[in-house]
């Protein structure tokens, strides 16, 4: 394959990971923005979504679409419920102190991960995609006969991958509408702007916190259900989404939704393209250093306005 089709392929793969990353990172960003706490266990909520999707698909059987659709509904709800319980049982009791929350969510990370290891086991298991047609993509070339289209070998994507991108875009638009147009979004934004003032105006701040924590986790789980037919479910799969979401949230500016979205697309695409040409380890080294340096020299993020 020549360079051109290669880059197109890499950016298509990158677009899929950007879509999933955007869902996960927006979840993390919401929790940080509204609650001002960093949830280290976010990657494990992602993993839990994928594992629950496998359990649901496995127990239903029949056509893959039935199991997948059920998982799409059950996994985010269940993961969201688990997160709400964790919020009420742990975070609320330590009064959302930022540093203690980090320690507690590190504990939560190990609890979720190890309980999954004990119940689900160490194997990686796939969930079958509801539909999965291969779509060959054309490429053009200026030859002797002018502009020519042809189908290079290996340049293809699947209908499912395109559907993932569309689904993620729809959900993100929904989150945007929820935050800007609905009463629930208004309460969340009020809590984000000034917790004490919101409390004084009778907003049930603790209930808002619990719901935001659950909603953030549910978004991560949704991203995981979408990705699990492409990437298998495994008890250690939460580490990479956590790291990448962190990168996205910090580059995009802590607590800023549009910034997070732009950064997710940027990071997802460049991660896909860089990984094709360089070693993935080198790409990760550069990305982690970038996050560290951005936090040191530009703590408000590249697009944000508020310091961490």
């Amino acid at each position: 394959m020549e360079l051109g089709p290669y880059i197109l392929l890499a950016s298509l793969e990158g677009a899929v990971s950007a879509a999933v990353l955007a869902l996960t990172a927006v979840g993390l960003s919401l929790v940080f923005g509204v609650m001002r706490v960093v949830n280290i266990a976010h990657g494990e909520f992602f993993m839990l979504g994928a594992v629950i999707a496998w359990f649901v698909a496995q127990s239903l059987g029949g056509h893959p679409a039935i199991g997948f659709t059920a998982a799409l509904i059950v996994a985010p709800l269940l993961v969201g419920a688990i997160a709400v319980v964790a919020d009420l049982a742990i975070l609320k009791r330590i009064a959302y102190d930022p540093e203690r929350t980090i320690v507690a969510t590190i504990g939560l990370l190990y609890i979720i991960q190890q309980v999954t290891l004990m119940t689900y086991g160490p194997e990686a298991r796939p969930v079958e995609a509801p539909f999965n047609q291969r779509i060959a993509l054309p490429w053009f070339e200026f030859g002797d006969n002018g502009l020519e289209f042809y189908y290079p070998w290996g340049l293809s994507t699947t209908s499912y991958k395109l559907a993932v991108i569309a689904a993620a875009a729809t959900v993100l638009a929904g989150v945007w509408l929820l935050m800007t147009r609905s009463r629930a979004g208004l309460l969340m934004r009020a809590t984000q702007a000034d917790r004490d003032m919101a409390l004084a105006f009778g907003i049930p701040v603790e209930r808002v916190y619990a719901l935001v924590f659950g909603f953030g986790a549910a978004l991560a789980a949704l991203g995981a259900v979408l990705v699990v037919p492409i990437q298998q479910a495994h008890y250690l799969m939460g580490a990479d989404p956590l790291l990448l979401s962190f990168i996205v949230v910090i580059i995009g500016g802590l607590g800023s939704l549009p910034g997070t979205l732009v950064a997710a697309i940027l990071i997802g695409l460049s991660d896909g393209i860089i990984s094709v040409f360089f070693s993935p380890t080198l790409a990760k080294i550069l990305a982690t250093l970038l996050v560290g340096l951005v936090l040191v020299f530009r703590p408000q993020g590249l697009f944000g306005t508020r310091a961490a």
Partner: protein
Amino acid sequence: MTNGQRIIGLHLGLLVVLFALQFLLPAYHHGNMARIMVLASYAIGYNILFGYTGLLSLGHALFFAAGMYGLSLTIQHAGFTPAPALLAGVIAGIMVSAGLAFLALRTTGVAFMIVTLMFAQAGYLTILYFAEYTRGDEGFVIQAGQRLLWGIDLSDPTNRYFAAFTLFALCLLASLALVRSPFGRTLVAIRENEERVTMLGYNTFAHKLAAMVISGTLSAAAGATYGLLFGYAGASFASVQYSIFPLLWVLLGGAGTVLGPFIGTLFMFYLIDLSSGITTAYMLIAGVTLVLLTLFAPQGLIGELRRRVWRWLP
């Protein structure tokens, strides 16, 4: 008895007990104890930054690994003998901690935690990237023949115990001397109220920098000793897990207490040792302990002891 005498007596007493245990412990626990003392030295280093200065780092594995690889790479590829290799490990620790301190101390709170986490992760990935020299995750063994320190064979259990004891005693006494010195008291003041310390005319940045370098140096010394005594260096010692462990040990034992890191390491080591006999998911214990500690005993074991009984504990 004055409090000063009590404090000195208690800590020297612990060292005497640990020295005597060498002759009493059965082989299995003898080996464990040597390991615990080296890891407790790492925890003591961590405690100086976290417990006394109030800076929560999530990247101390970087310093531990700097010491370990400073020692093992110079032995493996430059043909160093253990004494200069140990020195190389400690110097690596000083340089890495000073470098990270200059960057990370520009931030505070949650940003400080994430910055240290990210740089430690970059360090871990760098070790994986240069797998040609470090053998990555698999790691490499330092042969018994390369572990003769001034003619003492450190692969022998008795010598190993004594070497671990020496490191631990040095770290414990250094930490005790530090926290009783004016410098140590300034660090505690920074932890309690940094703005006020600045207003009193102290250079808080210099103090925090020094604390981070001392903390990183002790951690690197522990890492180098660990590699030398147990003859192995692997990338897993640079992973996030090894940044979480000292936090866990110090929280369990009691942050901001001199004995806390040792007590926490001792308890956690045996807790994980016992549970790994039952299940492979032994990190579950670590997770549950972390959550329970943040909820019910943020002071840790020695911290609770100090609060309730011995108010004079340093």
